[in-house]
């Protein structure tokens, strides 16, 4: 390890496997994160295909209900902890040092470790598919007492969650340490690109919420094996307590998935509208408000457990309150586009789609936040539609936008714009065919996490499944586009997009292995170009 660290001081890369296993270079680790996330996206996606195949028709066709429930559970865990979060951390690794003019992350070895924990954790989780009693099937929320009935897979689930938490916390500490201590001289916090800001705030959310989840799952573990009864009524515990602990983590978690996406589109929309971001300061404050509020709304996930009426009202109003800073952000994105000289390259298409579709997901979230209404919608496909709008057409669309936006910087080549646009339009149409009908299914009362359904739901489920298969196949096109771009293509300029702003566009494309070893001079002109 020390020889590699030594190598880093010279201007040549370590080679072969060593380069990747022992890497302390933020760009290499960023690449590893992104490739890992894409791999997990396909594994989790394959599980979604199994789910949609089973739901194509009423009745049981392909898998038994236990396995179906495993698919639902593991799909969620993989997509959240394996795809969206690592993709966000990968982007942060790649882009934050470039955006703030730092030579690398503050803690490069910890960076290496936080990545390499991930394959290990997912090996634990995925190995449960082959165990007696099958993979965890009690839902990703791991509610007791159901989750305690998991077979041999149970401790693997708990330890996988522990490792994922440790990895994310280390990543978060690294990001904050980097941003607070390694900005180029002269760059104040309020001059940082918004992507950096959203990641700082996301990191604080991670550090504040993941340890609570770690505590909660540890209690599950001791309840099962060491005779404690935190959640066991037989010993005087209460299973509802777990739901409180889980959602104290779980609600900030949804913003951990969403805030980096906000940061991404806040970089891309100004670039393609050729106007500075509207209301930079209000964007920062709105992001911080969302983050703080996210710790006071957790019980809106559990309106039906028997909360006192005052509690339900409090959590309902607090939930509605989050719509205000979110509305500020949506307003600012639209105001940035207003009278801009817009062009619609693939990153911009994904970003505009993000703004529209995330807002639809936000509206269905508002509906779910109304307590009396939630009693009807709770645990139906309406919830499934809601969170897939904010996570798939929200977070994933933003991550796709980021990939297209920065691919020229990463590879030095422009991607195939025509294929990129085809990928976008197919994704847009198929994801809406996939998820829009699920609103109707939920409103009509179809419960989630059930492999069979009443025949009255058959038509919409068939439409939804067709959309699902189309979306799944479309993503293979993305892989092809990325590989094609990495192999060659039109050479990218340092500033790959006319309107792109920020320090990352001051370094050549592809970004050399070492950048900003001497800090950039932040002249007035450069600073003005930052935002």
């Amino acid at each position, binding site marked *: 390890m020390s020889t590699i660290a030594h190598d880093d001081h010279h201007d040549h890369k370590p080679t072969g496997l060593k380069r990747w296993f022992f890497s302390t270079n933020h760009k290499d680790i960023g690449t590893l994160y992104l490739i890992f996330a894409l791999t997990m996206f396909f594994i989790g996606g394959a599980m979604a295909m199994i789910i949609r195949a089973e739901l194509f028709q009423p009745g049981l066709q392909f898998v038994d209900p236990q396995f179906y429930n495993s698919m639902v559970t593991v799909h969620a865990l993989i997509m959240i902890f394996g795809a969206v979060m690592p993709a966000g951390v990968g982007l942060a690794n790649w882009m934050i040092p470039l955006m703030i003019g730092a030579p690398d992350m503050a803690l490069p070895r910890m960076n290496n470790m936080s990545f390499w924990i991930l394959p290990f954790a997912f090996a634990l989780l995925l190995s449960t598919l082959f165990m007696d009693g099958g993979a965890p099937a009690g839902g990703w929320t791991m509610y007791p007492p159901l989750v305690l009935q998991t077979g041999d897979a149970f401790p693997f689930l708990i330890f996988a969650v522990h490792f994922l938490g440790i990895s994310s916390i280390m990543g978060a*500490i690294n990001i904050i340490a980097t941003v607070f201590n*390694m900005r180029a001289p002269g760059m104040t916090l309020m001059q940082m690109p918004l992507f950096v800001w959203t990641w700082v705030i996301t990191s604080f959310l991670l550090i504040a919420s993941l*340890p609570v989840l770690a*505590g909660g799952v540890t209690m599950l573990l001791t309840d099962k094996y060491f005779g404690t009864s935190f959640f066991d009524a*037989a*010993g*005087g515990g209460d299973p*509802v307590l777990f739901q*409180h602990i889980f959602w104290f983590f779980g609600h900030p978690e949804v913003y951990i998935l969403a805030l980096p996406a906000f940061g991404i589109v806040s970089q891309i929309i100004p670039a393609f509208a050729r106007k500075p971001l509207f209301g930079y300061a209000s964007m920062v404050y709105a992001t911080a408000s969302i983050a703080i509020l996210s710790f006071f709304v957790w019980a809106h996930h559990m309106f039906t457990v*028997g909360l006192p009426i005052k509690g339900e009202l409090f959590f309902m109003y607090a939930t509605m309150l989050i719509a205000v800073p979110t509305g500020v952000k949506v307003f600012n994105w639209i105001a940035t586009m207003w009278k801009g000289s817009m062009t619609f390259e693939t990153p911009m298409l994904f970003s505009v789609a993000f703004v529209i579709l995330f807002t639809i997901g936000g509206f269905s979230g508002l509906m779910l936040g109304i307590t009396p209404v939630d009693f009807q919608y709770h645990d139906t496909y309406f919830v499934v539609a809601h969170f897939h709008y904010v996570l798939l057409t929200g977070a994933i669309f933003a991550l796709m936008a980021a990939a297209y936006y920065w691919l020229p910087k990463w590879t030095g080549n422009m991607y195939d714009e025509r294929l990129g646009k085809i990928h976008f339009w197919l994704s847009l149409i198929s994801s809406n065919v996939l998820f829009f009908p699920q609103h109707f299914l939920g409103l009509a009362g179809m419960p989630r996490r059930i492999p069979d359904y009443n025949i009255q739901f058959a038509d919409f489920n068939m439409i939804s499944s067709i959309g699902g298969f189309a979306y799944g196949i479309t993503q293979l096109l993305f892989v092809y586009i990325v590989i094609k771009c990495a192999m060659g293509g039109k050479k990218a300029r340092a500033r790959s997009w006319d309107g792109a702003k920020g320090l990352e566009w001051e370094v050549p494309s592809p970004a050399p292995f070492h950048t900003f070893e001497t800090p950039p001079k932040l002249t007035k002109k450069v600073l003005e170009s930052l935002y």
Partner: protein
Amino acid sequence: MDNKKGVKKTTASLLLFTVFMFGFGYGLVPLYDVFCKITGLNGKTIRVTENINREAIVTDRLIKVQFDANINGDLPWTLQPNQRIMRVQPGKFYEAVYTVKNIKDKDITGQAIPSVSPQVASLYFKKAECFCFVNQLLKAGETKEMVVRFEVDKDLPEDVAELTLSYTFFRVKKVASIN
């Protein structure tokens, strides 16, 4: 600009914060109990010591108390209240008896958990004697009578005319009692 000292300081304080939040997760457990006690949620009942010298408060009000019994899961016991309904005056102590029987030819330990509904009434339901929250050993085929001595507080809200006391017996395996 490679601010080594700053990085160390930030990292240390963030690690400390991580540990603190892990502890906070565990802190939520007693916090939750306190919250439930104050609000009377969860129907957890109140233990009191009976003051024999206290003068009985005479009111005309009669509260209907219903008794309910459940066996959880795979415990081979039967549990029955000897009285289904009692009409009680608030402010006075009463005794109710449950009969519990082990129908297996094996010694088994169980533990009872009480609950009062409506939840608001649990704040006013006070027990001087109860067989709950402790391990109860029943020999093979043994029958036992278990007593609960309780009073309904005179401050019970006017709109509560009846309440239910429910006991559930759980099998004690490796589960430790919290009391």
